[in-house]
């Protein structure tokens, strides 16, 4: 019996491949793609407001609801937050990655890796709650500001329209800072990988040809490492786009897409609108990834 089987596999290797690949493919097909399709299907139904039950008929009315001012604002708010977080993480991550890739050696480099990776080892929730305490009105930031007699500066910052609030942890600034902290490692690591792949010879050649350091950076290093920035931005952007825990703990309660989906499916029982909402980040990310591929981000991963 075993012999027959092994002969069969020897003569028809395709069968063996199929048997080995079958289960994981079925998993992806049924569990992953299948649930996405079920979600997509749901978004074409709609909720009857009078009875509160889902009507299983094809309609685009649910998608039209996304254009309601309140829903549109939620989408724009989330995209704006994701974009801001991405831009600032790139600005902060680049110098760190640059130092690590081009200057740090031996122990320093190990230390650097540890410093970047360590926050990823602790629980996400613990970090968010810790930040809530740091940013609180009675937290360490305002304590330091008051001790240095700079309380007025913090108040000035918090009185800024839109991004301000009654305290750092009750404002967009707080949400932004926590996102920035949480996702920063995902930006640093791809940039560092991209920087390490910039051939030394190019830099030396540029120097031989008389280019200044600034010029070398601008014309050689930055363009060659840019795909790394784009790769990192995929993480920071998409993770912020879908998160629903950070804005619930730190911020001013103005809902982001994730929270809206959570409330719509959990509390309101409006699965169709929740499904339509989840399609939004998927569409945004599809375009984002197309753009990122053009910029060569997938070669930098």
């Amino acid at each position: 019996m075993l012999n027959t089987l092994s002969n069969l596999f020897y003569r028809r290797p395709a069968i063996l491949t199929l048997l080995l690949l079958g289960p994981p493919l079925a998993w992806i097909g049924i569990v992953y793609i299948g649930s996405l399709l079920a979600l997509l299907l749901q978004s074409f139904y709609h909720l009857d407001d009078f009875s509160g039950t889902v009507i299983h008929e094809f309609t685009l009315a649910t998608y039209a609801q996304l254009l309601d001012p309140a829903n549109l604002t939620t989408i724009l708010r989330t995209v704006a937050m994701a974009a801001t977080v991405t831009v600032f993480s790139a600005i902060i991550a680049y110098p760190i990655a640059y130092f690590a890739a081009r200057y740090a050696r031996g122990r320093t480099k190990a230390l650097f890796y540890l410093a970047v990776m360590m926050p990823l080892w602790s629980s996400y929730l613990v970090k968010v709650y810790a930040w809530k305490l740091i940013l609180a009105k009675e937290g360490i930031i305002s304590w330091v500001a008051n001790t240095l007699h700079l309380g007025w500066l913090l108040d000035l910052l918090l009185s800024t329209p839109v991004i301000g609030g009654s305290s750092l942890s009750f404002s967009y600034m707080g949400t932004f800072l926590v996102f920035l902290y949480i996702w920063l490692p995902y930006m640093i690591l791809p940039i560092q990988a991209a920087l390490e792949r910039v051939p030394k010879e190019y830099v030396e050649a540029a120097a031989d040809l008389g280019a200044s350091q600034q010029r070398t950076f601008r014309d050689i290093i930055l363009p060659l490492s840019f795909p790394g920035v784009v790769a990192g931005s995929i993480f920071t952007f998409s993770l912020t786009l879908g998160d629903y825990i950070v804005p619930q703990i730190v911020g001013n309660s103005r809902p982001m897409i994730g929270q809206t989906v959570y409330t719509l499916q959990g509390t309101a029982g409006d699965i169709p609108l929740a499904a339509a909402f989840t399609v939004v980040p998927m569409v945004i990310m599809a375009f984002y990834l197309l753009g990122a591929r053009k910029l060569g981000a997938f070669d930098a991963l």
Partner: protein
Amino acid sequence: MKAFQTATLALLAGAAFWSAASTALRAADMEGEVDIVAWPGYIERGESDKNYDWVTQFEKDTGCKVNVKTAATSDEMVTLMNQGGFDLVTASGDASLRLVAGKKVQPIDVSKIPNWSTVDKRLQDAPWHTVDGKHYGTPYQWGPNVLAYNSKVFPEAPKSWSVVFEEQNLPDGKSNKGRVQAYYGPIYIADAALYLMKKKPELGIKNPYELNKDQYAAALDLVTKQRALVGRYWGDANVQVDDFKNEGVVASSSWPFQVNLLEADKDVMAKTPIASTIPEEGATGWADTTMMHAEAKHPNCAYAWLNHSLEPKVQGDVAAWFGSVPAVPAACKGNELLTDSGCDTNGMGNFDKIWFWRTPIGKCEADGACVPYSQWAKDYLAVQGK
């Protein structure tokens, strides 16, 4: 199977107390387990804190293994019960009638529950579990949504919910803007309606959960204006505790659970002392019922649990753990964990002032069509986004 039954019987033989308490249920009929959907913290077997355990002894006495599935929202409970496979659920008032209407729960025979007679008379025929004279479960615990306030800022307890709904200067001379909170759940619109019942009698609101278009518009308008006062809405009880401690929140709707936590912390009480009250408008609240699934697979174990859940010791322990009020008044005396003042702290005396949570539905008795809950949910989300 035989060996198992023998073991069960052997265990039961030792439990003289149990057989005396419930002669109606014969040990041999026990199915060996019972599946319960419950709120987190409602059914404890001493895993969080070994003093809080009302499961282990029940399992020993009856041979019914208790399997708990916790659910975070009423909607999740309804979904789980719709899927089936459970015997019991601890449903709040915003889920219980939905379960009855959906025929997912069965009427229970109170004569099989010796402890039924000890249940608070005010809860025995409560409309959220009694339909057409039939009881669809046994009351478990209840509690008010109190107004928690900082007693340094308010030397006297605020008399009205207006301190969280309308912009005004608080007794300390500063505005309430950014210093009050509201509950993040859409059911909070009922709190606004409750406030309007007194404030604007011309609206004719008779029940904060049954609002016609105009009444609903007025309540929604009130919570929309409230948005400007609220720094952040609270959903997680522990986060709210922190907001009272560290964020300068001085007044908010809250649960006795948070107030108990804050009052137990001496450092907090020295710096930001918190107390709670029920203002003259009354308050909303929740009352939970243990209900039995229409197709319960382990009815005898389920009945045994229903009876067990009404034991004064169990009721008192749950109340102490959760900050709620027991459905059995006898539980208020002589419980070590709850202490004799526990029931009053958790709101025992306020029953008549409370409008218990119910799901707003489109069909309602008063004034024609009412605004359904799905609309509440969508509008309240939009309010928070403003």
